[in-house]
């Protein structure tokens, strides 16, 4: 069908100029992104997307960020999404462009981050012929996207894009890939374009409101608790449910813990907050999990790093679970009161139900429970041996916390440094702590920080990383120069793949197979050659000063290379397959 045939001006209506706009597929994509309110596209050009890049050329509403590797494009869009709640948008070419993006797509998928990834594809007549730079992008990404599409005609382009944004951002969010054959964006084929305001899918209607009966049951159970515990996850952050969470938790006076992904939803400095739980969680959080009689899980998915051995998980507890994804409920752990719905909506309804019930928590039992918790807290499981000689990695995070007033955006890579950042930086606000929890993707930190800095130009953004992880996307230092991103890279350089070394120390009798990092670059000179500021910090006394100086350089990226204690371990630790009550504390604490 030709575009001209589609357009029939209605004779008795005043002809509106807007109705007459005819656009090519490439132009439709750009116009659609504007209409959708997209600010940034993170991408990398190539043959199959050249028509789209041509349509981007010379316009200013959509800012295209040119990364140096497609993996970084997806992580940057992901960091943008995590720190704003808005979908991140990626544009990559066919073949190697999209395969490079897969790690970032899987990272977003595991943490339920809304992304729309546009990938070029070979022209329709060539599909299936092993054409140059052809891969089955829809097939390759199928297991790691929320959904994906292949666009079959220019006519359906706008509608498919609308569906992609709708699916990515609603319900349990996630990445959506749209694969676009090159000829669909042919500049010579122009058709009418109207922004599709609405979309409806008969097969997709996420539940938002919790069932009133379940809410009543949950409230009854929650108020009857003698040893209650609240366990929250990334779902609270993703659904912007922090306010409702704080209101309810303060009202109840119950202890609360969070997963790695949920940090910041409830203020980390609040006395009711017991710290993170799980494999490297605090003693008090894990012990309270083990001993509680009612567990209230909010937007968390009972991941194995959190639950430890399921056999020993919360043995005495009745469990309430709110999640927007029915498939998350009773997946790993059978729950007693499931509530499917959006966290803030359900929490607000619960608070209302509590107020209407006129009932109060059992204050007497609660006081005893807090007494017990305070005894666990007195162990000070996060205390570590200070040193004047060698920089303790934990102390760098504590200094970062002080220097930034606890108010920075902190991204991280994966390894020991990630756990220390999570343990020692107390996040009081949601969307400040940006890390790859589900997939554990080394190389995430720097590109994610770029996305965060684009979204929050004036904000302080730190990337806590290790000398292993940073080298997985180090090329992005070039992108940071091009766009003037004043990120502070906090490299906890222990000359080891530290987390691997720790496991080898504990479980392989110290056989450090391939976990030592040799032939490291001089990170200071590396940063400088990319046009940035580099600092090496070797003495504990210099840590805080260096961070202060770095943050004073407001418009420069500073690479802070902290030479840290090589053999420090992350404590507490629950070995894989053990229960919450079987934690190892640091050797000093174990004696205490």
């Amino acid at each position, binding site marked *: 069908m030709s575009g001209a045939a589609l357009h029939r001006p209605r004779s008795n209506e005043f002809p509106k100029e807007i109705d007459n706009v005819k656009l090519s597929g490439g132009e439709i994509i750009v116009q659609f992104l504007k209409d959708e309110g997209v600010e940034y596209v993170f991408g990398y050009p190539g043959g199959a997307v050249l028509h789209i890049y041509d349509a981007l050329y010379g316009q200013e509403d959509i800012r295209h960020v040119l990364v140096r590797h497609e993996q970084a494009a997806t992580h940057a869009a992901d960091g943008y999404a995590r720190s704003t709640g808005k979908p991140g948008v990626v544009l990559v070419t066919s073949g190697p462009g999209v395969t490079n993006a897969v790690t970032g797509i899987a990272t977003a998928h595991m943490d339920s981050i809304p992304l729309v990834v546009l990938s070029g594809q070979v022209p329709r007549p060539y599909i299936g012929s092993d054409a140059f730079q052809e891969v089955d992008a*829809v*097939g390759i990404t*199928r*297991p790691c996207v*929320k*959904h994906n599409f*292949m666009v079959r005609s220019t006519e359906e382009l706008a509608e498919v894009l609308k569906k992609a944004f709708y*699916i990515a951002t609603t319900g349990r969010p996630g990445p959506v890939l749209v694969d676009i054959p090159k000829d669909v964006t042919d500049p010579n084929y122009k058709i009418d374009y109207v922004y599709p305001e609405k979309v409806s*899918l*008969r*097969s*997709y209607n996420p539940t938002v409101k919790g069932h009133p009966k379940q809410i009543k049951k949950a409230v009854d159970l929650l108020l009857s608790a003698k040893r209650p515990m609240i366990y929250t996850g990334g779902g609270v952050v993703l659904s912007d449910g922090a306010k409702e969470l704080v209101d309810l938790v303060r009202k109840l006076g119950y202890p609360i813990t969070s997963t790695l992904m949920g940090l910041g939803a409830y203020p980390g400095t609040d006395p009711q907050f017991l710290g993170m739980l799980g494999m490297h969680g605090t003693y008090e959080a894990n012990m309270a999990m083990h001993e509680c009689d009612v567990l209230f899980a909010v937007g968390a998915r009972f991941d194995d790093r959190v639950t430890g051995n399921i056999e020993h998980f919360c043995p005495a507890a009745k469990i309430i679970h709110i999640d927007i*994804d*029915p*498939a998350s409920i*009773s*997946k790993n752990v*059978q729950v007693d009161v499931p509530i499917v719905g959006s966290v803030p909506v359900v929490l607000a309804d619960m608070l209302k139900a509590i107020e209407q019930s006129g009932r109060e928590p059992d204050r007497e039992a609660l006081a005893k429970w807090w007494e017990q918790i305070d005894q666990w807290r007195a162990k000070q499981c996060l205390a570590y041996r200070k040193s004047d000689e060698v920089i303790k990695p934990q102390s760098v995070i504590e200094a970062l916390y002080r220097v930034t007033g606890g108010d920075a955006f902190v991204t991280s890579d994966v390894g020991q440094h990630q756990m220390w950042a999570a343990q020692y930086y107390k996040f009081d606000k949601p969307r400040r702590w940006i890390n790859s929890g589900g997939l554990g993707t080394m190389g995430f930190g720097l590109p994610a920080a770029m996305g965060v800095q684009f979204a929050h130009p004036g904000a302080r953004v730190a990337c806590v990383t290790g000398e292993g992880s940073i080298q997985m996307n180090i090329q992005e230092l070039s992108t940071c120069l091009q766009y003037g991103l004043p990120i502070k890279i906090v490299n906890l350089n222990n000359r080891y793949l530290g987390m691997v070394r720790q496991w080898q120390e504990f479980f392989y009798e110290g056989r450090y197979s391939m976990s030592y990092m040799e032939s490291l670059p001089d990170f200071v000179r590396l940063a400088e050659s990319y046009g940035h500021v580099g600092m090496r910090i070797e003495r504990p006394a210099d840590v805080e000063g260096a961070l202060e100086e770095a943050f004073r350089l407001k418009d420069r990226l500073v690479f802070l290379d902290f030479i840290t204690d090589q053999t420090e371990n992350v404590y507490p630790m629950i070995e894989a397959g053990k229960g919450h009550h079987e934690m190892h504390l640091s050797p000093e604490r174990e004696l205490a």
Partner: protein
Amino acid sequence: MRHIISILMENEAGALSRVAGLFSARNYNIESLTVAPTDDPSLSRMTIVTRGSEHVIEQITKQLNKLIDVVKLVDLCEAGYIERELMLVKVRAEGNDARTEYKRLADIFRGQIIDVTDRIYTIELTGTGDKLDAFLAALPDTALLEVVRSGSTGIARGERSLKV
């Protein structure tokens, strides 16, 4: 426990591979899978026979429901249902004894001989999987030349129906 899950899904390219991919990625068992368009050309209907504990079956139905292309599904085994499978069997039917015997067997199982040569019978049979198994067991191994089974499909008894 054996379950029969009936699915209505968008008649889209790739919908089948989403379902098949889900089963392999999550290590769910598939005994059989059939799929064909329905009276509504925008929908296709799939029937999957699977095995698993109650917990696994619950996860399977939840994960299937999560697929954007899945419009509706039902676990037929939750109430009364009718199950049918089609089988075509080619047997070596040589000599009068064998030919009468296989004709008689086909009659007993309410099958039909749909193709004949002087050495071959091709028999068509429908029924539950058990019935088809029983028929095969009644034939001597040496006679069996080829067996084709469609996999099970099914429908709920009475008022219950899977429709959009």
